[in-house]
């Protein structure tokens, strides 16, 4: 079988990995090809700070919470692997701050050591009177993506730097199944009015004395529109912007000023941090993740597509759960096509 994955961000690469892991000894031959116009370090995943943290409340979307948890547990188990450093995964603790009392987040039982902030801790953050402390995981895209590509390359997965214009194009070239992980630009392949850009801008600085993330939540301003400071292994990501419908990937100086001033108010020591670079990216925002099969008729032929896009600002957080689900859907196709192990008896 020939599998074509569109997109080489964390979603595309991890989907390729899960499919290989689960089917390379079942389907023979299994060729997996990844098509993308951008590869690491130029993908959306590369710009993200890399903190595992879903939105505060899942609003009943238990499916996504399950995928988030799967990803967390998977990454936690990777900590003990000799590959952990090359994967870019490590533990980090930090503060989530609210301007008013708020219910505990949906992820409280998934992370480690979740607790309420004490009075003395809240005193450190004037203007915030409620919040939580917990230990979570960091997964740095700039490290994880090269590791994934290397993992895939070693197992015979091939990569093509090319913008795919249509599913038909791939089907005609012989792909049996297409995994659509095209993130923000899925609309180019198939219009989706629910998919919108959630533009973000961040400033990366050198501040190695910071070891905790500090994320503020302003329920009126909405998610990601309130300052956050997330230390990485080398640089600290400072942000706090989400602009719906803004397609610009250029750095904006007004946004920079807003991010920087509000972050310095939150963490005065940042004043002396060396600014390394600004970056802007488009979160592929959707009401919920589109992770489903679609059989597209093209003339007499039927094209099997598995959609896996619309992960908003939580792609790294949810990637493994989604990849495993995509592999499960792939398994259904394998059964249907009679390529599975049962077919060989």
């Amino acid at each position, binding site marked *: 079988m020939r599998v074509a994955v569109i997109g080489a961000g964390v979603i595309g690469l991890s989907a390729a990995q899960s499919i290989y892991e689960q089917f390379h000894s079942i389907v023979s031959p299994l060729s997996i090809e990844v098509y993308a116009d951008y590869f690491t370090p130029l993908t959306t995943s590369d710009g993200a700070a890399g903190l595992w943290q879903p939105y505060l409340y899942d609003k009943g979307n238990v499916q996504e919470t399950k995928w988030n948890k799967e990803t967390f547990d998977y990454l936690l188990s990777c900590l003990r692997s000799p590959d952990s450093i090359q994967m870019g995964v490590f533990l980090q603790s930090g503060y989530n701050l609210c301007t008013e009392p708020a219910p505990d987040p949906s992820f409280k039982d998934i992370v480690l050591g979740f607790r309420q902030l004490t009075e003395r801790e809240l005193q450190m953050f004037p203007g915030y009177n409620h919040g939580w402390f917990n230990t979570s995981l960091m997964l740095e895209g700039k490290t994880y993506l090269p590791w994934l590509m290397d993992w895939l390359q070693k197992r015979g997965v091939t990569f093509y730097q090319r913008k795919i214009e249509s599913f038909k194009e791939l089907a005609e070239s012989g792909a049996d199944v297409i995994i659509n992980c095209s993130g923000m630009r899925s609309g180019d392949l198939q219009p989706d009015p629910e998919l919108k850009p959630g533009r973000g801008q961040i400033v990366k600085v050198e501040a190695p004395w910071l*070891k905790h993330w500090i994320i503020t939540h302003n329920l009126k301003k909405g998610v990601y529109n309130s300052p956050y400071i997330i230390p990485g292994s080398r640089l600290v990501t400072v942000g706090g912007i989400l602009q719906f419908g803004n397609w610009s990937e250029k750095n904006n100086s007004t946004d920079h000023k807003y991010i920087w001033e509000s972050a310095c108010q939150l963490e005065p*020591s940042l004043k002396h941090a060396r600014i390394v670079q600004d970056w802007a990216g488009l979160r592929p925002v959707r009401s919920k993740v589109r992770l489903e099969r679609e059989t597209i008729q093209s003339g007499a032929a039927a094209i099997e597509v598995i959609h896996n896009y619309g992960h908003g600002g939580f792609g790294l957080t949810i990637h493994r759960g989604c990849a495993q689900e995509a592999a499960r859907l792939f398994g259904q196709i394998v059964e249907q096509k009679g390529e599975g192990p049962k077919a060989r008896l």
Partner: protein
Amino acid sequence: MGGVRVVVVGAGVVGFSTAVCIVENLPHVSVTLLGEKFSPETTSDGAAGILFAHHNPDVPVEQQRRWFKSSFDHLRLIAQSEDAPEAGVMLSSGWQIFRDVPEDKTPYWSDLVLGFRIMTEREMVRFPEHRFGQAFTTIKCECSRYLPWLEKRFRRAGGQVEQRRVDNLQDLSGSFDVIVNCSGLGSRSLAADVSVQPVRGQVLKMEAPWLQHFIRDGDGLTYIYPGIQGVTIGGTRQGGDWNLQVEENDTRGILKRCSSLEPSLTRARILSSWVGLRPDRRTPRVEVEREVEVKKGGRSVTVVHNYGHGGVGVSLAWGTAMEALGLVKKSLQGNKAKL
């Protein structure tokens, strides 16, 4: 009052903390700090500087609390200010783990650090050989930055600094009215106190920027402390050992013990190694020695001691400095009363 002249002997964390406390709180007094060695060559410089309190059975708990609280609160304000990076002061969260469940699960300092709690079972899974753990947030104070920052603060308040080896406190009684002895191990001769013994400690500095938490074994021998420019791992506690050379055996032992707590350390590069001698004493000595009568002119010179902090110098420096300040104040008031 007339020019009261105070001299502080010792340029480590206790010396500079004491000097700053005095010069900032006693405006009509001139303060000089004399040190043989300055940062980066003091004992304080190599210490990881994690604020941690021990239970000393020979010091009243209230006094230990007061000293630790004073140091913690003072440094916490710096950690949250613009000065943090220059002063080398930062918040540090992590875990202290025990192979056997300790008798005292919530020690006297648990409400003085931030967010103290017992570790959950899920958190203990990473440490299969340990059965109990405490999670909390404390402060890391890196003396290679903190001491120069304190010196700046000291000079800005009018303090004088001189590099000089003092062989005998009596030599200073001609030029000063109050002598504050913060000479650590040097007090063996300067205060004729042989109860101060070196406890040798070796540490390694590792390049492991992915480590964000401290991990400390409750036995105090094995610890991992991520800092601003590297992760300090250790350690050793060799009583009566004056050897300042880095020992290969100790390096191997440290790497082995620390890697078993944090396996990723086996893939980290060693940046440097260091040995320091903790100025250990049954209790830190913070007190006035009986006033020394200077033969000529009938003046009396007060000697205030502030030494013997062992491995908790950084943790108790500010608290004991404030205590020493109190003793200096009292003795000056006492002298006024005598005039």
